[in-house]
């Protein structure tokens, strides 16, 4: 269901790939924060602008990311390599389903209300687990929805509408 198992094995054997990926991520994020920070005004040490701290930190993160990337090209941390080799491939589809369920919750909670939104989110999340049939997922999500409504709306009385505008709640 997720990507080819062979690729993860080679990724584990190829030295330093995790370091390169981590380093690259840090460089990209560091540059984004540094460049973004610059637009808010850096100011001087005497009168710092809102962009000063993000700019400096962004530069530091970029440098650290570069160092980590270089370490990756040199073979990387042996400990990380072993750890990566032991792990299965990235569960893109299953992980994506979880993330999708969470984003769905955020996007529709105000319009659909808690009960239907939570049902969909837990259904997708249950389906993302290994060896779960749609019927079983249905049972799990109904049970969890009822339980959560009981806890959060019944016991804790959070101000969350059970049914949203779209459903006339």
């Amino acid at each position, binding site marked *: 269901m997720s990507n080819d198992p062979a690729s993860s094995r080679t990724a584990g054997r190829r030295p330093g790939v*995790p*370091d390169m*990926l*981590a380093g690259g*991520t*840090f460089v990209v*994020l*560091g540059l984004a*924060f540094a460049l*973004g*920070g610059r637009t808010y*005004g850096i100011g*001087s*040490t*005497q*009168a*710092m*602008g*809102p*962009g000063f*701290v*993000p700019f400096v*930190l962004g530069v530091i*993160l970029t440098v*650290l990311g570069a160092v*980590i990337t270089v*370490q990756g090209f040199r073979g990387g*941390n042996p*400990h*990380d390599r072993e750890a*990566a080799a032991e792990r299965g*491939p*990235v*569960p893109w589809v299953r*992980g994506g389903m*979880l*993330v999708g369920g*969470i*984003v769905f*919750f*955020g*996007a529709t*909670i105000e319009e659909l209300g808690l009960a239907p939104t939570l049902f969909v*989110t*837990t259904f997708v*999340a*249950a389906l*993302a*687990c*290994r*060896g*779960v049939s749609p019927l079983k*997922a249905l049972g*799990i999500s109904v049970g*969890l*929805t009822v*339980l959560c409504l009981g806890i959060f709306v019944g016991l*804790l*009385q*959070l101000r969350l509408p059970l049914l949203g505008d779209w459903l006339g709640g």
Partner: protein
Amino acid sequence: MDLSGLALGLETALQPSNILICLLGVTLGTMVGVLPGIGPTATVALLLPITFNFDPIASLIMLAGIYYGAQYGGSTTAILINLPGESSAAVTALDGYQMARQGRAGPALATAALGSFFAGTVATAVVALFAPPMASVALKFGPADYFSLVVLGLVISIALASGSTAKALAMIVLGLLLGTVGQDLFSTGVPRFTLGIRELYQGLDFVSIAVGLFGLAEIIRNLERRQTHSVIPTKVQGLWLSRDDFRRIRMPVLRGTAIGSALGVLPGGGHILAAFTSYSVEKRVSKHPEKFGRGAIEGVASPESANNAAAQTSFIPLLTLGLPAHPVMALLVGAFIIQGITPGPNVINDEPELFWGLIASFWVGNLLLVLLNLPLIGLWVRLISVPSEVLFPAIIAFATIGCFSLGLNPWDVYVVAIIGVLGYLLVRWGCEAVPLLFGFVLAPLLEENLRRALIISRGDLSVFVTRPISAVLLSLAVVGLVIAILPAVRRKRDAVFSEDE
């Protein structure tokens, strides 16, 4: 020792309603904490939102209960199925799991609970003894000193992280950067990195960050496994310790308590260091070091006591300096702020009832744990076998509802997804999540004090080295960093960390 303060605290914590709330917290914390793979930090993060409905004292007391319950739940999984929830419990798993395999799970669990209770009691006294004078010292701290203190705290958390120093540093800096998202409240109110989204003006919520890092990322990591191997925990019978057991754990508990109380004050992860140090001390002083790792009860008693004492004394930096010394304390900072209280040296004077009530309730939480939760262990053990296809959706449901209910803001939910994916990938690539959380929580403190210090000094950067307190703290930070980078020390430290794997 401030006895009147402690008395006030006990009076607050022992009010029937507060005992009930603490009990509820302990029960919930244990319930979630024994679920496999969920450590105390994740438990507290997941259950945080449900405490916000109460008044400040009740909410913090409940959190204290949740924390103790979660801690105990974490030790339970470490002992019964060799699955420590976080790194400080990894030491407990060494001998605890071996004891469980030899049919001595009961005594191991009882030792963990009793050792924790004793350590918690002593450490409560330590907090009462040292927190008030520390707070009055802290009031003398200027912005430059605070800045250096935060830097020191962050450096210590790197020194204790396993794996690459550069990666740990990068995670801290990334956390600090995420902490700058939102309006710049210090000067102009300019929205930073909000991408034009109004909902992000208040910044990213720390609960979303914590839930993403320790909830979602952890679940995705679990989905990597091809088969979900079902864990059948060992049966627990005979909780009571024999006279011989008592004799054997007496000294280890005392030593663990002393080590934990001292190291817990270190900002940035003293509890991990405390657990590891106390274990290796026990191994060294023991007449039978070869028994360690094969089910020595001393190897459970000492790190569990140290861990718990450290958790308690890590309140000293939190309540006197506003500096979290433990991932859970980092979450508590957020809880304080949501309740409208800024943790720091003023809490003890402005909110004495809260300050002492909280300290006392940690002790009460510990007591409730021994009195009620230990006998209920059979019930908790069943939770360990909750299948992942029920567990994971339940965590997702709690995480989303909890984060959304904080501010009825959908972006708090989206942030869980974004940070969860980012955290999962970075951890997969050999980074650690805890430094990022520390960086995120400490970002406002760091920036505010940096900017304030430089305004006072008129832009002169030398203020950080000319003020004596700041100079000392910064040089300690430099020493810490050098130690973390030195290859010889690293190798030794790796050896210590790999010992538990």
